[in-house]
């Protein structure tokens, strides 16, 4: 059977969650009136008594999830990334992370590919808000198979986890039976002149950029750092040592997310030129997803240009 070329990470989340509900009776799911969008409605239909709609109340969503975790359940709490991490940041901080509770926050609609709903609904700072929290594991799947693997992994892990999913479908990179390992980055393509580091949809764009660079005689390594926290810093350092220049690419502000994380590692352990592809001190806006990716400079071409600039900086930093 031929796999579909593209999948949406939120849709794959919804499907795997409903499947896991069958396997594990302790899973409970909470949503804040967005179950059709976050895809938790699939679980809700199958397991009515284990699904709790909290209404439009994200702070209460997180607190109730915390209580269910304390009561021995394994809660998955879902809403849009901006409301989960922005509206309820302090609930995540105080009640979930400070208490180190076994809550899985799976937030959809990360990044500008939310599209037409506009800047108010496009989370471009959620990874920054989550990455700074002690005890929390922060994950951004690069495709459908990785989403399924991460959700399965999160279920087996004792402690709080944040997973960011996306609205739109994008190309599949991994095998169907992909396994996720916490704290490990992946080398998706080997290269010698530069390293392209991506998360989420941007991993695919990094792979495309590597092909563009190859056509110009530049050999690019591509990393998927889907485990943003704890970060595979050794892989970043090794890549800096072996390729001498890096580009980070994320559907997020360049501050606080992947670009910052890579930059912190390089500055502390192995200074090397880095160019960060992402939103630069700006909010999102309404438009078609594809257009917005171009508008905000998140396309393979943009990554290619950043890579050439980073290579040009070699030996100068």
């Amino acid at each position, binding site marked *: 059977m031929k796999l579909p070329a593209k999948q949406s990470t939120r849709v794959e989340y919804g499907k795997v969650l409903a499947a896991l509900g069958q396997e594990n009776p302790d899973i409970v799911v909470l949503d804040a009136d967005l179950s059709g969008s976050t895809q938790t409605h699939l679980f809700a239909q199958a397991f009515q008594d284990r699904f709790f709609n*909290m209404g439009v109340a994200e*702070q209460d969503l*997180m*607190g*109730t999830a915390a209580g*269910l975790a*304390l009561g021995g359940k394994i809660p998955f709490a879902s809403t849009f990334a901006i409301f989960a991490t922005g509206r309820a940041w*302090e609930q995540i901080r105080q009640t979930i992370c400070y*208490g180190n509770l076994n809550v899985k926050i799976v937030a959809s609609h990360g990044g500008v590919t939310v599209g037409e709903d506009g800047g108010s609904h496009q989370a471009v700072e959620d990874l920054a808000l989550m990455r700074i929290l002690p005890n929390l594991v922060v994950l951004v799947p690069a495709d459908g198979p990785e989403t399924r693997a991460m959700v399965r992994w999160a279920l087996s892990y004792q402690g709080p986890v944040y997973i960011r999913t996306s609205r739109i479908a994008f190309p599949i990179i991994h095998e169907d039976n992909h396994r996720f390992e916490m704290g490990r980055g992946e080398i998706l393509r080997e290269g010698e002149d530069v390293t392209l580091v991506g998360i989420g949809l941007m991993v695919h764009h990094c792979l495309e950029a590597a092909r563009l660079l190859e056509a110009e005689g530049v050999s690019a390594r591509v990393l998927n750092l889907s485990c943003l926290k704890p970060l595979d810093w050794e892989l970043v350092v090794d890549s800096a040592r072996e390729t001498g220049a890096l580009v980070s690419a994320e559907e997020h502000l360049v501050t606080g997310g992947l670009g910052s994380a890579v930059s912190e590692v390089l500055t502390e352990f192995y200074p090397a030129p880095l160019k960060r592809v992402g939103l630069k001190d700006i909010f999102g806006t309404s438009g078609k997803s594809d257009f917005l990716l171009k508008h905000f400079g998140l396309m393979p071409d943009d990554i290619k240009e950043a890579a050439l600039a980073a290579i040009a900086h070699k030996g100068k930093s």
Partner: protein
Amino acid sequence: MPRAEERFKQNIMDRVTDEAQLRELARQVRLDIVEMLYRAGSGHLGGSLSAADILVALFFGKMRLQAGDPHWPERDLFVLSKGHAAPAYYAILARLGYFPREELFTLRKFGSILQGHPDASATHGVEVSTGSLGQGLSVANGLALALRLNQSQRRVYVLLGDGEIQEGQIWEAAMTGAHYGLDHLTAIVDRNRLQIDGRTREVMSVEPLAQKWEAFGWHTVQVNGHSFPELMGALAAGDLIKGRPKAIVAHTIKGKGVSIFEDQAKYHGVAPTAEEYQQALKELQAA
């Protein structure tokens, strides 16, 4: 009778129903609070003293607990949503034998099991880490939902401050508790009418308070929060209410038990001076 139910009825700490005994426990808890805060040099005096009788009624008169075993699987659960009343909570947990009483006097010191605000990872008997106001009722709802999924008869109690309920999340959670008909949940509001900046009616009015809970779908009663017969009566009566969560608005006096601390906002978050400490001991020892 199924074994689980048998077990549920065994191993329960003897509940104190005698009013004089409860009063004496509360007097000792208040002495501990004053001593702890004086030795710590900081802490929240007023709200700990106002809540002391409520907590004694709950922990010694109502909740199913096993003295000496904070992890007893059939225990009732408590959330101190007004986390700054930690000294009163700790004094009670020590008396339940969850940790040695000497620990009380390490309150707020580096490395102590007794953090400035309740920390479940540090203190045996603390179920939920609190301190940032407004979050405990949601957690209590979640606990009650988990217990219901397990078809458990255990109950959940949560203590809220009357300044705390100015937080919007409380009212989100009030909707949730009623929507899911959490009848094993009781919220008690320590209505001492003061918050850090002054009287609640001047800072941000919370009235009509009982009507608010009632309107949100909670079975609501008002009691004198320093009267054990009234507290015990309301807690017992609440057990008979099915299909709705219960709210008890407990009218209290901030700083209750020591005349110089009573009904004064300035004693919200300070430790007693040496002089105040002596005066407090004198009054509480004579009480």
